[in-house]
């Protein structure tokens, strides 16, 4: 179905709008009431009931934190009831089914996989899996695949080309699976997609965005297109990706958390947001025409890190799409969508560093004209995802300061202002306990509800989580682990926020997508500072007030042990052990869906000869020819560059490949004449040592 005009969109006046407005109001009221009560409690708990500047600061930080965790709580609760009663009135899948999406004809759709210095084998194994799954539906003719590479590493670029060519040859996919490597990497991922839209976007009605580790079932892809076809008001439909396929302990725990708690939270997000939902940047379908017309991002005014290119582009694109009148939905009940989680805590934190800068940039977009209030709230939520850590740390520091003041400064019963009554500091430890209990309930009740939901609904069956006992023990362990990791994340996120605000920007790094473990030295380098701070903090607090130490103990103990925690959680061996014990099991592990089973089959190990890509590209007659066929002919070359290449060729042929730098290799790999000359020259080497170095012996 052709895209609607803006006028038609406005005239549509969707029925969900009224429900959304009402729900936003309800959520606001709930948050306000809950936070007011908790704030009042806090005022009563503090010895001077908020009459000192220090206490005012403590109350302010507490209110901000309490409101933030309350959002999560109400989201979880809404999701719980949505799933418990199967309340799908406004579910996009149900709406589309009622409009006949199951029998809708498909439209031309591009599946985009933007990649940046990724493991090419993994990227193409995922793509191959999706391709074959789609082929099995019989609807492959409606889809084209595009690998949009922004890879800067020449060797990784060659790997991508070889994988692409091998996949096309094996599956007969030339003309259906496409590959493009960008020379200039303007605006990173969003620029990469925009470049596709400008050059090839007009040939398709929809695009489905993949991440480098995404895998989707063919039936899901077909269903997404059918849904878009019968819902012409929809601009974006996001699927909830299930994280799977990792085996390190850390990753398995994250996968478990995502699989047990994720569906409830996603259903909750859908409940509150309806057609003004999130777009997470991948595993989602987008209507190209409105995306081209309304979602091209400009640079933010000012310099990076808060200005310049927009890093977390997905939230902004969702907001712009909605601003133009198009709906953005999360299809929370749509399966067949997978991704992978970072293998270690440090890898997750590296990713968070990038997301932190991107989310903080949203501060500058909050005041943009015409945005839906839900999307403004989404921006605040994104900012709070990282600044809440800083606020939490500030709260702890202020609380410690309050303890220090109480311990070191003599009590002033009379203020400087004239007063008839003395000021008595009052302590209410029972109230404090009640407040801590209620805060803990907000944090941990959602976990309990998710567990309960699985037991009641049995969808998926409990045996697919390892059985009742394993599931229950895993939930308890996961809760403990989350509590241990929270203070570590807090310190890192605080550092990220501060460094971003101080003007340090993030380099565009690729994400680690294989199971790599953290070694002790690396862990000490990253967590050593936190350990020292925690020991000093704990000792200081114990000296000031031993009873307060126990309040702080869960936080400082986690920080003191952050090095071993980071190391042991990264261990694949421990991940396998927990798998053997059926702990942290998810259905995708116990009965892998066909797509994930196929993915692992496609991830065949490389032989040693292929592992050295540069040497392989020079020596192997086929690989050399394939790579040359991927290069663009250079019509002219500066004389200095030609001389340098000549020198490099001589160096390579007389001293061997090991004497070349990465830059040398990169230059040689991008020059057709050098590739031809080296291929000829290497096969004519007579020196046995040099021949062996090139892999001829």
């Amino acid at each position, binding site marked *: 179905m052709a895209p609607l005009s803006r006028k038609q969109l406005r005239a549509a006046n969707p029925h969900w709008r009224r429900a959304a407005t009402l729900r936003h109001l309800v959520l606001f009221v709930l948050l306000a009431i809950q936070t007011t009560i908790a704030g009042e409690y806090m005022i009563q708990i503090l010895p001077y009931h908020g009459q000192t500047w220090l206490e005012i600061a403590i109350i302010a930080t507490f209110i901000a934190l309490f409101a933030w965790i309350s959002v999560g709580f109400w989201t979880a609760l809404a999701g719980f009831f949505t799933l418990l009663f199967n309340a799908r009135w406004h579910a996009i899948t149900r709406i589309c089914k009622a409009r006949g999406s199951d029998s809708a004809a498909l439209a031309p759709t591009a599946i985009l996989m933007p990649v940046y210095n990724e493991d090419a084998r993994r990227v193409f194994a995922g793509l191959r899996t999706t391709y074959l799954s789609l082929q099995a539906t019989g609807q492959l003719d409606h889809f084209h695949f595009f690998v949009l590479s922004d890879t800067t590493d020449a060797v990784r670029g060659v790997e991508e080309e070889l994988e692409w060519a091998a996949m096309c040859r094996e599956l007969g996919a030339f003309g259906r699976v496409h590959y493009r490597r960008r020379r200039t990497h303007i605006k990173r991922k969003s620029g990469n997609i925009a470049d596709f839209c400008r050059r090839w976007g007009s040939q398709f009605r929809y695009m489905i965005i993949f991440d480098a580790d995404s895998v989707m079932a063919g039936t899901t892809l077909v269903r997404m297109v059918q849904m878009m076809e019968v819902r012409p008001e929809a601009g974006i439909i996001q699927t909830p990706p299930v994280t799977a396929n990792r085996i390190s302990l850390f990753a398995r725990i994250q996968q478990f958390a995502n699989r047990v708690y994720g569906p409830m939270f996603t259903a909750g997000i859908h409940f509150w947001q309806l057609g003004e939902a999130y777009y997470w940047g991948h595993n989602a379908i987008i209507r190209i025409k409105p995306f*081209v017309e309304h979602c091209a991002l400009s640079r933010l005014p000012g310099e990076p890190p808060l200005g310049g290119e927009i890093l977390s582009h997905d939230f902004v694109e969702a907001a712009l799409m909605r601003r133009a009148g198009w709906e953005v939905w999360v299809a929370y009940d749509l399966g067949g969508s997978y991704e992978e989680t970072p293998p270690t805590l440090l890898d997750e934190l590296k990713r968070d560093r990038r997301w932190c800068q991107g989310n903080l940039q949203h501060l500058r977009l909050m005041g943009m004209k015409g945005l839906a209030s839900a999307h403004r709230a989404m921006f605040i939520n994104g900012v709070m995802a990282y600044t809440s850590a800083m606020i939490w740390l500030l709260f702890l520091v202020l609380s410690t300061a309050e303890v220090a003041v109480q311990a070191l400064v003599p009590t002033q019963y009379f203020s400087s202002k004239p007063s008839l009554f003395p000021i008595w500091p009052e302590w209410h430890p029972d109230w404090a306990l009640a407040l801590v209990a209620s805060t803990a309930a907000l944090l941990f009740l959602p976990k309990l509800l998710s567990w309960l939901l699985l037991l009641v609904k049995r969808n998926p069956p409990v045996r697919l989580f390892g059985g009742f006992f394993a599931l229950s023990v895993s939930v308890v362990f996961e809760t403990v682990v989350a509590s241990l990791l929270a203070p570590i994340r807090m310190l890192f996120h605080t550092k990220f926020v501060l460094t971003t605000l101080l003007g340090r920007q993030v380099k565009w790094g690729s994400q680690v997508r294989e199971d790599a473990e953290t070694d002790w030295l690396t862990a000490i380098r990253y967590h050593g500072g936190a350990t020292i701070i925690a020991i000093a903090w704990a000792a200081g607090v114990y000296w000031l007030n031993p009873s307060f130490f126990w309040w702080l103990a869960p936080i400082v103990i986690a920080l003191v042990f952050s090095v071993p925690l980071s190391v042991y959680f990264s261990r694949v061996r421990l991940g396998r052990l927990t798998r053997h014990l059926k702990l942290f099991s998810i259905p995708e592990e116990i009965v892998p869906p066909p797509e994930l089973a196929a993915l692992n089959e496609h991830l065949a190990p490389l032989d040693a000869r292929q592992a050295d890509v540069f040497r392989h590209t020079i020596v192997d007659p086929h690989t050399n020819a394939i790579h040359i066929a991927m290069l663009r002919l250079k019509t002219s070359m500066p004389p200095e560059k030609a001389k340098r290449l000549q020198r490099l060729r001589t160096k390579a042929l007389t001293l061997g490949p090991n004497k070349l730098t990465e830059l040398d290799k990169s230059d040689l790999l991008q020059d057709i004449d050098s590739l031809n000359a080296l*291929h000829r020259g290497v*096969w*004519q080497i007579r020196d046995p040592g040099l021949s062996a170095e090139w892999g001829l012996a």
Partner: protein
Amino acid sequence: MELPAAAATLSPPPAPADSDDAGRRLPVRCCEAATVAPLDDWRLASERVRAYLARLDLDPGEVRELAEAAIAAAAREPAWASGEGAVTLVMDALTAMLARRAEPTPTGAATPTAASAIWRLRNWLAAGKHPVPETALETDAAGHLRFAAMPPIRRINMAPVKIDRRPAPWRWLGRLWGAG
């Protein structure tokens, strides 16, 4: 001096019809060559050409035939007498043979190695299970065969949206107070 071991195993290959050497008996030339060439050089050349052909996934019969033809052609090269190494001559001879098999024949200043790359690419593609559509490949100005890895471009405009920020509330308040 004995005939080099590599050359000794050769049977006379069919010389190209358009070659000056057509119809001449090859072993005679090999023997002449062997009188000036080190034995090891021939052995290495024979091993190298077979190793190269093995990487092209050809069947053993074709490997033997091409290897013998390349060695024979190298032995006929006049450069042989001027001291050019057997490995160089044999590998160049093989490259030239592969280049002659390439279609379309490269034009312009393409070297034999560049031309042989076309044959190597076609050879690799032909070994696949599925036929390769002609649209998957294109020939550039220099006669190189290239993958047409992307469909034709049909450009459309995608202009960045203006980030027009709403006035901050304090400015609105300021206006109430009479500022601005």
